[in-house]
């Protein structure tokens, strides 16, 4: 029975890993776009988006798992 529970816990983690991977890919895309844009400054909307992302992640980091 414990083995089944362990397997279930690993399977539970997979969607989280996939979601995190997709989020990281998006952020890396932003970095590449910012680098490729050269002298172009980020727009106000882009600043707001990255700040909101950091705020949201900070809240998540500061929240203990249930």
């Amino acid at each position, binding site marked *: 029975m414990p083995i089944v529970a362990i397997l279930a816990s690993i399977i539970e983690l997979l969607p989280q890993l996939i979601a995190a*991977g997709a989020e990281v890919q998006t952020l890396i895309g932003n970095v590449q776009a910012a680098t490729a844009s050269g002298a172009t400054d980020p727009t106000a909307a882009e600043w707001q988006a990255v700040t909101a992302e950091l705020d949201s992640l900070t809240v998540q*980091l500061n929240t203990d798992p249930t």
Partner: protein
Amino acid sequence: MKRLPVFLATFARWIIYIGAFAVGAGFFGALLALGACSQGASVTQAPSPAAQVYAVENTYAAALVLAVQYGNLPRCGVMPLAPVSDVVRPCSSASAVETMRSANVQARRILDTAQAAVQANPAGATQAIADATQAAKDFQTVVAQYAGKGS
């Protein structure tokens, strides 16, 4: 006939090992991607000060995603399955999560300062950009210490 349960137990054990390896490999792969990303950002033509800070913030956010992912794992030592070792089932260290939280507070302060600096006076923000870049690297180092291990 007695060999069947032994075979099943061995098979299940290998599945667990493979699963644990996949979780660890997922973290490790993401960390490698982050490293490649930050290196790539430094060798291309010089972006504007604002674009530099924006890139640093996105790189930092990617590291923060991994920190959150690690923090979302069950805490080591408080899991319901007592006989199962923490090595088999990925878990997060409470002290490691606290370290990440403290590092995040510190880094966010520096990043916010850099963002304000490039928006107010881009030409005079060189030091703030350097500080932000270093803060993001330091945070990546903290996350890499723990997140890749899964315990």
